[in-house]
């Protein structure tokens, strides 16, 4: 589930950290539900991928929920964003396909990568446009989280696609 323009507007209009995190949490929930609904449709051979994506999105959902309810959120986020996010360009050339009824492992990964890329880009853009302060920090933090997830997916993509044969 990519962050749609309306989603971006929703995020832009947030005025508190908790509001931003609640919207971001909602994005993660919809993604989790999307993959959960997809799992029974795909072959068992590749279901592990979808199951892993559900777990990943759930982990993000839990993390953002926890942060949104944490009165110390501002301090915690500041600590997390000390590590600058890397901006890899691998996913840039991967297209977002229409998954169809019975997608294969590569299509699912491409979709997930595209989603993470889009989310990452959006959070980066929001962070750049936000004034210095807690809001900027939280967007930077979210961008970093999505970047890390994308990097993990790239690794899986390599293992799945660039394997077999010599």
């Amino acid at each position: 589930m990519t962050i749609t323009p309306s989603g971006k507007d929703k995020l832009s209009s947030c005025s508190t950290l908790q509001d931003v995190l609640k919207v971001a949490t909602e994005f993660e929930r919809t993604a989790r539900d999307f993959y959960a609904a997809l799992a029974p449709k795909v072959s068992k051979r590749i279901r592990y991928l979808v199951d892993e994506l559900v777990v990943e999105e759930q982990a993000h959902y839990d993390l953002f929920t926890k942060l949104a309810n944490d009165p110390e959120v501002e301090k915690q986020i500041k600590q997390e964003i000390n590590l600058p996010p890397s901006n890899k360009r691998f996913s840039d050339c991967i297209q977002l396909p229409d998954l169809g009824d019975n997608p294969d492992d590569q299509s699912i990964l491409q979709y997930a990568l595209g989603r993470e890329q889009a989310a990452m880009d959006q959070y980066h853009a929001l962070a750049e446009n936000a004034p210095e302060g807690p809001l900027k920090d939280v967007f930077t933090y979210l961008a970093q989280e999505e970047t890390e997830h994308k990097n993990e997916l790239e690794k899986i993509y390599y293992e799945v696609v660039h394997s077999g044969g010599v």
Partner: protein
Amino acid sequence: MKKIKYEDIGSILNPLKNLQFFARKPVTEPLGPRPAAEIYRGFHLNDMEKCIGCSTCQKICDNAAITMVKVPHLKNDPVNGIRNLRPAIDYGRCCWCALCVDICPVGAIELSREYVHTCNGDEVDSYFMLPQEKGMHGTVEEKGWTKTETNDLLDRHRQKMGEMAPEERVDNFDEIVDGFTPEQAVLEASRCVQCGMCHDSCPTHMHAPEYIRAIWKGNVEEAVEWMYETNPFSHVCGRVCTHRCETACSLNQTGLPQGSEPIAIRWLKRYAMDAVPHERIKEIAASKKSATRTGKKIAIIGAGPAGLTAAFDLIKQGHEVQVFEALAKAGGMTRYGIPYYRLPDDILERDVDVILSMGVKIQYNTRIGKDIAMEQLHKDYDAVILAIGLQSGRSTRIPGSDHKDVHSAVELLRKIGSVRDDIKAEKDPGFEIPRSAVVIGGGNVAMDIGRSLARYQKQQYGEVNMTITAIDAMENFPADDVEIKESLEEGITIIPSRGPQEVMLENGRVKGLRTWKVISVFDDDGRFAPQYDESDEQLFEAEMVIEAIGQMAETDLLGEELTEQLEWQRGRIKVTEDGATSVDWLWSAGDCVNGPDVVHAVADGHRVAESINEALSVER
């Protein structure tokens, strides 16, 4: 009494000569040891990091003074030719001949100038010691007898293999390599130190030291007997094996001033297999066949190396074996993936024929899941082996990659493999040969398709216009070095470190491949995370783009129900070490569960056959 002659005893005044010593200053020799000669052969030294544990020193020691001792904390990596064994010396036996120094393939063991060691009665075992870099007392600064080019007992360089020159071979599919003459084979075999590192590293643990020794003795039949203990695809492996044995060979050393090449184990195997008449090989293979029949029936899906090795073992054990093959001939990827110039069909046929001569039946052109259901096999057979290989090529799925002139390498190689028996068809593989093409990928499959198409281009257009490009730097290409070298010799352009971005189209036709320069492929943590320099963009003009980036198994034949019943592990059927799946009547072997080459498939075939034999024996 015999008279003593005056001339024998000298003068009567001789004793008086001793008086001269009374005037001399007395001399007292010190009690400590004196310095030994420059190249004295004293106690042993061993560079523990340099030593590979090959035990060649132990084998040459006539006094049995050397025992190989396991040192647990040291690296133990047999696949790459390192054991955690190190020589311990028994100085009750050692004669300090230094043959261990002269034979050591890596120059790790040396002798020091240290020669004094005393101990109390209860320390008598201190004469049996594990030499280290600083000697037995940890004080040695100077070495005595060491390895030099002149005392090296090893023949470091392999016999030169004859092969067709690039200009002779580039317009045809004739086999490139000549093979050893009998004289060359004996000379090459004589280089072997019988350390057994090759055996340890081989996935199917071929008895290479034994067959090399047999070749050295001139007994090629014995060599073939040893080969058939572990490998019914010895003809194939004699030509296209990935020869991990040679990587692990103790003579495969770099950094020595005299250089050091591994024994040409693959070519020796090829030599012995070619030297023994085919009918005799059949007899050798059949000699281990069980005389009794078990009455058990096994179905094998796929007539590649894994499936046929399992078939070979199971029929030897007395079972009935039926193989089902979707294509018209046996061999799997060895026939439909490896080009003729590396592995001629008639050579592959010999291995297959030996297996068939044992009584294995193959039903060709039969696609399980379509012509016969898996459930039917389950009903009709006591066990089923899935050995379907990796038949499908992966796609980059970059923009334009769905164009009809973008192909997977395995698809094209299958077409080429399907027609190559027919001399007329050899020049027409059943698809239009592009005047220019670019291959994406840096593995052997990329080289195979690039070199095959280059041959067709030369035949049809008189010139080669072929580019192979990959994301990896040249030194990290997965392809064998010799494949890269020969590709370049044949006029193929290889461009490393390019990331494919788009298949460019013009007027509905492929125009070329747009790429970016790759700055790095992996991040600091070793994770795949390529970074590109977008300002360095290149277009490789081509009429056809071929993808050779990875392969996958087509498992649709299993059907939905069985797919759900089976356990999977990251896209592959989950199997035990013995190849058993989670369904009690189904085993799986070869590339579809383990990769990635012929010799691994052979090893897998053995494991699965043994597992089935055990399972069926329990039932009996």
